[in-house]
């Protein structure tokens, strides 16, 4: 299996990173990996089901605030906290998914945006609990289970984030290649036809929205303890747009593309914003160029070189290389 070799090579290469990169770069790399995970979770919606969520930042903020609050109020080991935060966020996401999937298309995009904005408003509403505009500061990074202090170090944190990213990738990959994922592709290509074949498309969409929230909240839950604070900015709607850009530029419907997009953009932003303050200008232009000229994204361009032209279109069943058809 070709992709397995590639996956193992990438994983091993990533494991070496902390030993070759300077310390300050490691901070950027960890944040980039977290954002890659976040972008990948959005790809489940955008790339595989063509549900354009403009409020995916809600998942991120939810995960971040839940883990921050858990860490501030309970003295639980870090991995336990993160798992708990994801579980709570997923539970909160369930009714949200139920409401959002009543609509589709533009209404879906706007409803998700409304929920994200509602979250933003709630942060200010429950000031005593969430810290309001000051956010939550001084989030501790407690010792791991059985007195392990591995995760308190930056390198340890790096491995935890890497583990979460790779694990999520494998899970998502298995998901989109499963019969469940095939139905999602069916919804993407033609929802009416999929429904006519007897699939309850709304139930499928509900599940994928919940799962996308779960993985998105994992990214958020990893971010807050690393940064040491959580601010309302984590709910800001522009981040939803930014992460959508990363998914499209990386290559939607490929899982790996959005990870590359997220990691690449965050690192580039970090490097360029020191040099030029025109970063958003470049960012916006590159984005428009990709939507107009290369909707298959970076990963789509890369793989198109090596891929033999398929005799028959596979209808999006092979999650590995499918790009959203135009």
């Amino acid at each position, binding site marked *: 299996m070709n992709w397995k070799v590639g996956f193992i090579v990438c994983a091993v290469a990533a494991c070496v990173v902390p030993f070759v990169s300077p310390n300050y770069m490691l901070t950027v790399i960890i944040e980039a990996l977290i954002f890659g995970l976040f972008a990948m979770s959005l790809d489940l919606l955008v790339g595989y089901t063509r549900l354009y969520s403009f409020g995916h930042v809600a998942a991120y903020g939810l995960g971040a605030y839940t883990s921050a609050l858990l860490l501030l109020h309970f003295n639980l080991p870090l991995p336990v906290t993160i798992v708990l935060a994801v579980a709570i966020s997923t539970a909160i996401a369930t009714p949200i998914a139920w409401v959002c999937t009543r609509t589709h298309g*533009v209404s879906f995009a*706007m409803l998700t945006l409304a929920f994200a904005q509602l979250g933003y408003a709630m942060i200010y509403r429950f000031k005593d609990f969430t810290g309001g505009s000051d956010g939550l500061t001084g989030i501790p990074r407690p010792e791991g289970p059985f007195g392990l202090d591995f995760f308190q170090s930056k390198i340890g944190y790096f491995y935890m984030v890497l583990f979460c990213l790779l694990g999520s990738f494998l899970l998502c990959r298995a998901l989109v290649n499963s019969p469940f994922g095939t139905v999602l592709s069916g919804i993407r290509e033609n929802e009416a036809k999929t429904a006519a074949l007897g699939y309850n498309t709304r139930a499928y969409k509900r599940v994928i929205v919940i799962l996308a929230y779960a993985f998105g909240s994992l990214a958020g839950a990893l971010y807050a303890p690393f940064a040491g604070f959580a601010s309302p900015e984590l709910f800001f709607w522009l981040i939803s*747009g930014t992460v959508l850009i990363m998914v499209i530029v990386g290559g939607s419907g490929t899982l790996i593309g959005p990870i590359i997009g997220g990691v690449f953009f965050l690192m580039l932003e970090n490097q360029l914003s020191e040099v030029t303050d025109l970063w958003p200008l470049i960012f*916006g232009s590159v984005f428009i160029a990709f939507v107009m000229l290369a909707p298959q994204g970076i990963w789509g361009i890369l793989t198109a070189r090596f891929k033999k032209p398929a005799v028959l279109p596979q209808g999006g069943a092979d999650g590995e290389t499918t790009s959203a058809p135009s």
Partner: protein
Amino acid sequence: MDFVGFLLTQCLNAFSQAAVLFFIACGLTLIFGIMRIINFAHGSLFMLGAYVGYSTVAATGSFWLALIVAPIVVGAVGIAFEKVFLSRLYARGDGGAYLMVTFGLAVIMGEMIRVIWGPHPHGVATPDILRGVVFLLDQPFPKYRLFLIALGVIAAISVWQFLERTRAGLLIRAVSQNAEMVQALGTDVQLVRTCVFGFGCAMAALGGVLAAPMVTAFLGMSASVIIDAFVIVIIGGMGSFLGSIIGSVLVAYVQVFGAYYFPNMALAIMYLLMLVILVVRPGGLLGKEE
């Protein structure tokens, strides 16, 4: 008597806010109706209008001239954008692509404005004739806000009459119902789309100029206004002109009275209103479910 006066001024306040919101929401809903595009850049065009208005006032000293120049400039920007980018995406038939291209435009325009006009807010002076207050039931009320209400009502009636009574308005309504059929009957649908997009952008710019004397031209104004406009358009029903009027008034009332009675829930109430309406009527109050 005091309470009645208070209620009156608050109501008028809400109406003046509704007028500004209407200028941006009506363009947004017309563009959606005819092109099925959610224009994310509409807030930035509103902001651009405010800045162009500021420069016109600074150069010529005339607020009235700004009300003419800004819509023309911003309308031209909108037409250029539609011609160069959006017109190439119609064939793709993927609503998400518009959402993303216009989002990209919003990012670029925000940055361009920062580069050209600098990061500081620019105040626009209220024209002399509209300065000061009038007393309504012994309560002072700014003249400028009364002017906004009047202008909003005039604009709403003229656009409505234009859509209902003129041949161009008929074409616009026809395209929004069935573009292919209109094309088959020999009308240049592409031209109609370009004109409507330009008109929508010009309306947003007008709103921007009108808002500038109250809130100044500042960099964050696009973000706050675009979300309000989305909420209005969704509440009213996407593509429904009458819906955009109703939505503007509703949202303005929620904002003004919410800010007074539930100061720390004001933001949330607006979104809750939108959620409730969408759950009950997924297409909005006057819209059809797509």
